[in-house]
């Protein structure tokens, strides 16, 4: 599956070249909200007023891609939670008005498939349309779905593939009481070296045009794998098995993109993964830019694509060990030691 175009709305200024060219924002609080583009050119004002943040930033990232590329054959999205602000606003009304007369806007906007539906509507796309909500693997499942759709296509076919997650006070609270966020304030550029429990919260919308056609591709997604509830021995075995299945050995990987989120309880998984590779293996982190959220492996894929295309050299925000433009990248992310994923990405013409 080839990646032809991409776009991201994130806590960094990623919808222009600003972030890629070296500027990045240091946040001093534990909530990293997206920097949104101006939507006036993209979304009619009457629609925009009713849109929740997830739908709004998803459209902000996706619609320009749909407009500047050849007609897509469908839309595949991943989101763990969809439009949570609307969801809990509606819930609050249910309780506070004792199930009285409520307006449906919040309800309709809160369904996780509202973004894929709205995108189909705005771009008049009657093609394939699916939303995956599989928690921390929702975007990985969306990639798999898109790969299978393209494999089954006989003609030149392309899809919009993407992920969205929004912060609301409510889901921040729910994850906070579940022990997922740090209690002390920490700056995002100190996240990776943090020695406490929990992470910091981020959000974002990342969108790709994927195709079965290699022409002018920016990257090729070779394969991916999910692993659930493993022990540490499983991970090493499964990594080797995954590489073998794709005719690779550890030496063939040029760069690891690691999902370290500064949670001292679980970051040891990344140490284990690195130990499966030569000691001088290059690696970079990404959650120092965007924080932790369920579908941020989509941002890792955005980052990987830019790295394969020679970007981010001398970027002052880069943390890790990164010197050479890679040709083959392995993205590894895990959530609380329970859900793990590998995504293998290559430049379209390796060697």
């Amino acid at each position, binding site marked *: 599956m080839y990646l032809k175009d991409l776009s991201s709305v994130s806590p960094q200024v990623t919808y222009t070249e600003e972030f890629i060219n070296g500027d990045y924002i240091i946040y001093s609080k534990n909530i990293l909200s997206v920097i949104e583009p101006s939507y006036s050119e993209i979304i009619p004002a009457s629609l925009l007023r009713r849109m929740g943040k997830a739908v709004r930033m998803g459209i902000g990232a996706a619609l320009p891609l749909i407009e500047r590329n050849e007609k897509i054959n469908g*839309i595949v999205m991943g989101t*763990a*939670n*969809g439009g949570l602000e609307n*969801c*809990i606003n*509606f*819930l*609050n009304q*249910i*309780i506070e008005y*004792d*199930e009285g*007369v*409520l307006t*449906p806007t919040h*309800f*309709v906007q809160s*369904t*996780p*498939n*509202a973004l*894929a*539906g*709205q995108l*189909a*509507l705005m*771009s*008049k*796309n*009657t*093609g*394939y*349309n*699916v*939303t*995956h*909500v*599989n*928690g921390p*693997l*929702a975007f990985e*499942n969306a990639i*798999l*779905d898109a790969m*299978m*759709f393209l*494999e*089954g296509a006989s003609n030149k076919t392309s899809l919009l593939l993407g992920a969205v997650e929004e912060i609301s*006070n*409510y*889901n921040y*609270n*729910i994850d906070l*009481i*579940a022990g997922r966020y740090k209690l002390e304030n920490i700056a995002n550029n100190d996240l990776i070296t943090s020695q406490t429990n929990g992470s910091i919260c981020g959000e974002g919308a990342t969108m790709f045009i994927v195709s079965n056609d290699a022409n002018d591709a920016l990257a090729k997604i070779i394969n991916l794998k*999910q692993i*659930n*509830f493993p022990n540490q021995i499983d991970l090493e075995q499964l990594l080797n098995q995954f590489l073998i299945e794709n005719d690779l050995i550890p030496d063939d990987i040029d760069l690891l993109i690691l999902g370290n989120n500064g949670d001292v309880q679980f970051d040891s998984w990344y140490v284990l993964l690195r130990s499966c590779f030569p000691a001088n293996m290059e690696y970079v982190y990404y959650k120092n830019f965007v924080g932790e959220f369920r579908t941020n492996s989509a941002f890792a894929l955005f980052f990987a694509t830019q790295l394969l295309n020679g970007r981010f050299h001398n970027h002052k925000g880069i943390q890790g060990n990164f010197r050479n433009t890679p040709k083959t990248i392995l993205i590894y992310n895990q959530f609380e030691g*329970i859900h793990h994923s590998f995504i293998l990405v290559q430049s379209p013409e390796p060697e």
Partner: protein
Amino acid sequence: MQKIFITGMGAISSIGSTVDEHLNALRSGKCGIQKARFFKSRYAEDLVFGEVPFSDYQLKEFNNLTSQKEITRTTVLALNAFKEAIHNAGISAELLKSDRTAFISSSTVGGMCYTDELYSDANLKGEPSNYARSYEGSDHTWRITKMFNIGGVVDTINTACSSSANAIYMGARLIQTGRADRVIVGGADSIAKYTVNGFNSLMILSEKACKPFDEHRSGLSLGEGAAYLVLESEDAAGKKHKIAELNGFGNSNDAFHPSTISENAIGPILSMNLALQMTGIKPDLIDYVNAHGTGTMNNDLTETRAINTIFKKVPPYNSTKSYTGHTLAAAGSLEAILSILSLNNNELYPSLRCESPIKAHQSRPIFEFVRKELNYVMSNSFGFGGNCTSLIFSKCI
């Protein structure tokens, strides 16, 4: 490309706790839509629901889960149907662990079925509730994955009312592309204040039990339940009893409106045609359509139009939501199972309470029990966000 067979089925809804009980209910015209006994809401008095006739505690008791306070009604409904499906297909614990066994579920309300607890937790009122780590849409999927050590691809889909039809689609693609040998597919939803108030705010809930395809229908009746099918490749199924074959599936988007379907039925016609194309048969070979048939003014008129557009001679069709109510994410897989029951028993069940059929078209849904040789059946699911999916099953002789 590998053929895809159904080798196991499991279902729970207001009309039964097993697939056999569903068959009996269909044959006897038993409707599960009535006053709710367990659902607490101001609408429990005013409206009727297809409620599974057991309390959360009873459901947990059946499944030996009473000590697990964090388990939601959605999860326990899912578990009940999941266990029946894998038992029916004879999938061993060892096979479930294989990385060639996948699990694709779906839900709309997911873990958010306890609205009051979620309200407290989201607003940091008082001590965290038992469900503080159970709210996500994928919660039931992960709990079942952990209980059964499922080793392959795991996924949760939410395309509103077509969710589990798309879980079947996704599972079928995993087998066709050689990524899995067997996939347990389906969905689960429980009645919750969240959905009841949501549909009520759209003014599409009927006060009395829904009357799909009736000229004077007044909306849908919400139900709840779970349904799972075991799909296996021809090689994996081997000499095992094959219940039916999944021949075709189509997915489209209506691209018209967030919560209604276009008057000219663009999405439904597309998804039905795509399923027919994949099956490689002409429309006239379809012997029965299990319609989406919610009972809303919009859906039933549009779907009748779609059926009359695709079929020169309209095949028998009904809405089994007139028995179960609208089970939301579970509807696609539940109705796939009910379609297969019709198919294998050569029986057509009447669409309940359709007294005067929609005037705009000549066709009318099945109005009495009929025995008839059936070979191909189609099941439709359409959802908010324009998500339309159609499935075609055939007999295994």
